[in-house]
């Protein structure tokens, strides 16, 4: 899915898949923080909107 989205012109940072177990609280927090920062820098995605 990530590869397909990149192929049609989405920034690689827009889509992320991570395996996080219910007991991995720190990994969850770090991943979401990291993603939020990257997405804020990219700005809103205007392609799936009307």
């Amino acid at each position, binding site marked *: *899915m990530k*590869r*397909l*989205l*990149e*192929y*049609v*012109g*989405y*920034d*690689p940072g827009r889509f992320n*898949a*991570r*395996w996080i177990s219910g007991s991995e609280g720190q990994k969850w927090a770090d991943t979401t923080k990291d993603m939020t920062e990257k997405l804020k820098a990219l700005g809103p995605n205007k*392609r*799936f*909107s*009307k």
Partner: protein
Amino acid sequence: MNKVTENLRKTAAKLLQDKEVEMVIGYGLGSEAVRTQPVFITSPEDTEKLVWNSFCVNGLTKYLSDLKTHPGKLAIVVKGCDSRGIFRLTQDNIIPRDKIVVIGIPCAGQLSYTKLASKIDVSGQLNDVEEKGDDVVIKTTKGDFTVKKSEALLDKCNTCEHHNPVVADHVVGDAINASPTTDSYDEIKKYEAMSTEEKAKFWLSQFERCIRCYACRNTCPGCTCRECIFDAIKPDWVGKEIDVSENELFHLTRAFHLAGRCVDCGECDRVCPMDIPIRLLNKKLLKECKELFNMETPGSVEEGGSVIGQYRLEDPEEFM
């Protein structure tokens, strides 16, 4: 009349006479010289309508899905590329293998209507096609035309993996000894190499033109869900209006539903009335599945399932 057509008619007539099958699905002459159309033959006398020539571009396997409740067995004419669609349908449990009689025809490559129509007058009726070295002589009621085969060949035939059908109960015609071409995916690599902005611009200009006719879905031997997500109104998964963002969602979802299942017959591309290069999406996923899961082109062998429906310990886990 060429030898293959003659043998094809004989084979079909025998199958119908012996009541082995109720219907033969094959190619008949079309409305223009360089077109054929699907024909559905139910009596031995009508097998005269069957033809085989360089214009049998349609993939017929999807009709098996439409006719799966037809009483008795169905015989179908397939080329190498379409024959993978047979295994797609049987693996997906759309139709049992013993309900189909496959008439396989080894195919050296088909000629493109679009490429020919710009070169010759196609409005007559076809009398005969003759191959002379690198040239093809197309004899029609509006005159004879000689074209270079390499200039008129369908693009997909240049990287053909199976000239000979992967499955056939009856083989009509001589097997083709060409060594299988391995697709290097050069075309896909070209699109992968573009910048994010270029890709977005290119693909949005393609998706923008889509009229949502669903011809790509309807012709696809892998698109056989009884209830299609794109038809569903409740819940309304994908908007029905023609709008670039809904169109994009349709195309990406359609491509992804076929990831690891697409048999690479190229029918989606051929049927698109807006010339959207749909196959580029499927081929990209095919390339990725081959690289990641070491998969062969789906439909090449009778047994097997889709890579996305299977789990193996050695599967790559980039998301861990």
